[in-house]
């Protein structure tokens, strides 16, 4: 009860943030899942972590509605006819966003925004359309108050895409996070350059490798994908039931040497995490009733056959360092090769596993390079090279790229640039294109003095990061961002000349 009272009395939370905190307290009082002693031991030591998902999963962690279908059919549950013009379309979307569940209470995906809006721009005048798009973005930022809210753009250039990028650059908001699905054959340079210029100012959009994502998801049996939350690739019209992560930095000390890690500690931990994920997925699917009762399912905006689950990992760098006798991950080829071997083994074991009650991807879980949580200390996100030892820009990208193919449900690198990069945005575009061509799945950039900062995957306004007065934040992610700045050195990223 103590925790509940603490939440009630907390002066740094808004009332709606208190609701969320209280719901978490309530959920933690039930023991809904069968958790073996072995799993519990690894949870207690922080090797396995479910990232605040709660003890009784009652909604999928990541819900990725088919908004294209929604604007065609409207919604019986919401009492909405299919929209006929731009105002109706934007209003309908804002209504639906309010009802898309997640762990945070806000939708992690708001659609392929340009493709959704473009048909409604037919006949709309420039000023009116621009104003409507600006207000749409503004309302998202002020009502969907955390920056795991994510919209996609591209790969083709559209009028809507240009409007969204131009207005995002002017608004300087943290929400929504944006990805440009980039394909050199489909995305014209002019449009990509507009995105690069915007990224220098407001840290978005990031570049998502459309070829790699679409090939991976096609191979897994999905027609289409979306990039959601931080940078998570997931099947459109479905999502992910859960995300549980393996903290390799904390696993490393439990192994005597490299052989012991690869042959015993690692496969055992992976097996136990899969067991824990199975239990969470089974409860959500069989006990919670989500897939029987939620209107998103009934109206076909998501369907059970497109729900997978994400196997996360974090802290590869620290794990490799711990077993490399002074050689450093990200600096030494041999250390990197060992890191790749760890990831390859995890990938193989996860790919061989079949979830007991999921149909998507034949029951396979997808690998995800988790970016960390705000109280991680000395644990680098996913497979990233630790802040403070980043190599020269292109060397950094070339070292990172081989890891990216293992992570269909998301991995990415973030780069800070000198403010002078604005004089030559074509430079950033060249780097982004090179990164895509070299096999990087996801590339994020911003200028070191940008108004919006990319923390690990999510965004926080610089003024919110610098605030120290302990009054409530409008956006939940601002709190996470301040902690991450202290614990992960986010603002100390190497600044690229």
């Amino acid at each position, binding site marked *: 009860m103590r925790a509940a009272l603490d939440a009630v009395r907390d002066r740094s939370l808004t009332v709606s943030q208190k609701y969320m905190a209280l719901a978490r307290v309530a959920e933690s009082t039930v023991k809904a899942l069968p958790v073996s002693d072995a799993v519990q031991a690894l949870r207690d030591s922080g090797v396995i972590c479910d990232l605040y998902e709660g003890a009784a999963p009652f909604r999928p962690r990541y819900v990725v509605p088919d908004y294209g279908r929604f604007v065609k059919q409207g919604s019986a549950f919401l009492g909405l006819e299919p929209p006929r013009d731009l105002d109706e379309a934007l209003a309908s979307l804002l209504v639906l966003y309010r009802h898309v569940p997640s762990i945070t209470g806000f939708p992690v995906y708001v659609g392929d925004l340009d493709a959704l809006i473009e048909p409604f721009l037919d006949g709309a005048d420039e000023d009116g359309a621009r104003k409507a798009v600006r207000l749409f973005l503004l309302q998202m930022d002020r009502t969907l108050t955390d920056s795991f809210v994510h919209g996609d753009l591209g790969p083709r250039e559209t009028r809507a895409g240009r409007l969204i990028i131009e207005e995002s650059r002017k608004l300087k908001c943290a929400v929504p996070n944006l990805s440009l699905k980039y394909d050199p054959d489909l995305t014209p340079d002019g449009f990509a350059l507009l995105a690069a210029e915007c990224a220098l100012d407001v840290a978005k959009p990031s570049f998502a490798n459309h070829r790699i994502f679409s090939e991976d998801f096609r191979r897994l049996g999905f027609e289409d994908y979306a990039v959601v939350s931080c940078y998570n690739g997931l099947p459109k019209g479905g999502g992910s039931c859960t995300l549980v992560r393996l903290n390799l930095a904390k696993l490393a000390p439990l192994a005597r040497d490299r052989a012991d890690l690869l042959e015993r500690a690692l496969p055992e931990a992976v097996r136990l995490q899969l067991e824990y994920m199975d239990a969470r997925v089974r409860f959500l699917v069989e006990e919670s009733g989500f897939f029987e009762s939620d209107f998103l399912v009934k109206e076909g905006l998501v369907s059970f056959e497109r729900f997978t689950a994400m196997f996360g990992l974090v802290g590869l760098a620290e794990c490799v360092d711990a077993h490399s006798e002074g050689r450093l991950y990200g600096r030494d080829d041999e250390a990197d090769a060992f890191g790749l071997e760890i990831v390859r083994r995890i990938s193989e074991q996860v790919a061989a596993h079949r979830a007991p009650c999921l149909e998507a991807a034949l029951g396979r879980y997808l690998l995800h390079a988790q970016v960390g949580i705000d109280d991680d200390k000395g644990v680098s996100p996913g497979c990233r090279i630790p802040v403070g030892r980043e190599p020269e820009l292109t060397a950094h990208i*070339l070292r990172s790229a081989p890891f990216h193919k293992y992570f269909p449900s998301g991995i990415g690198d973030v780069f800070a640039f000198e403010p002078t990069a604005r004089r*030559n945005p074509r430079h950033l575009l060249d*780097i982004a294109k090179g990164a895509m061509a070299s096999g990087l799945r996801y590339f994020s950039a911003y200028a070191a003095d940008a108004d919006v900062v990319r923390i690990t995957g999510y965004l926080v306004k610089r003024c919110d990061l610098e605030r120290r007065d302990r009054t409530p934040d409008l956006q939940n992610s601002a709190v996470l961002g301040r902690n991450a700045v202290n614990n992960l050195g986010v603002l100390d990223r190497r600044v690229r*000349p």
Partner: protein
Amino acid sequence: MIGQQAAEGLVARVLYSSAVDGPGNRAVVFLQGCDFDCAYCHNPETRNLCDHCGACVGACPAGALSIAEGGGEGGERRVVWDETVCRDCGACVRACPKGSSPKTRRMTAAEILARLERRKPFLSGITVSGGECGLQAAFLEDLAVAARAAGLPVLVDTNGSTDYSARPRLVEAAEGFMLDVKAWDQGVHRALTLAGNDAVKRNLGYLAGAGKLAEVRVVVAPGLVDAEACVRGIAEVLRTAGAAGRTVLKLIAFRREGVRPARVALPGPGREELEALAALARSEGMGNVVIV
């Protein structure tokens, strides 16, 4: 070229990625050696050639330098630099009695392109800079031809002391030239650089006429440079060549950081002075003026 030995360049440094040496992301090849001695030089260690006296060897805290007796082509002693141990601390440059650097390497165009092979997807092209790259024109020409064939257009960053009209193959192969005009008046130029500027002015007209002048730069350093005369003179030459509208004129504010203190005591220009020069350039017909 078959049977002929490829020209080697004396390379001070290869940079894989730069945002400030031409449009887009460019690799930069810095060549060692310069024939101007500009008072405001920011890279004075790239001016003189190493004479292998060995004064730097003991100064290196990383043990990256050593003497190889008889290591040269004619059996003379050489200072050898081990790039893999070098910490780039600059102690060798500070110890050099000539203000030079031992950290140079003889490379062919093919060797440079091999180094850049994995970086190609990231690059708009290569910029060759210095030192003064025109002093190694044969190598520069090789590099421009080979790089173009490899899909990496070359921009030449030059002080214009080399007569490029005598190098049509280089001019044809290069994407363009970025030419420094240090001063317009011969006397001012000599005082600033200890060299004349007849060749610079000839190159200005020749490269503009050939459609290969990508950019002209003037470093605005009050008391050292006749910037207004530069702007007027450049505009006149470019107008005559029909290139005033398209050629970038960059007005670069002199900054004292990194400059040899004995040579320059004056502060850089104010914003107003730069804006006035830019306005003058535009009124003289320059279509693309940038202040840096």
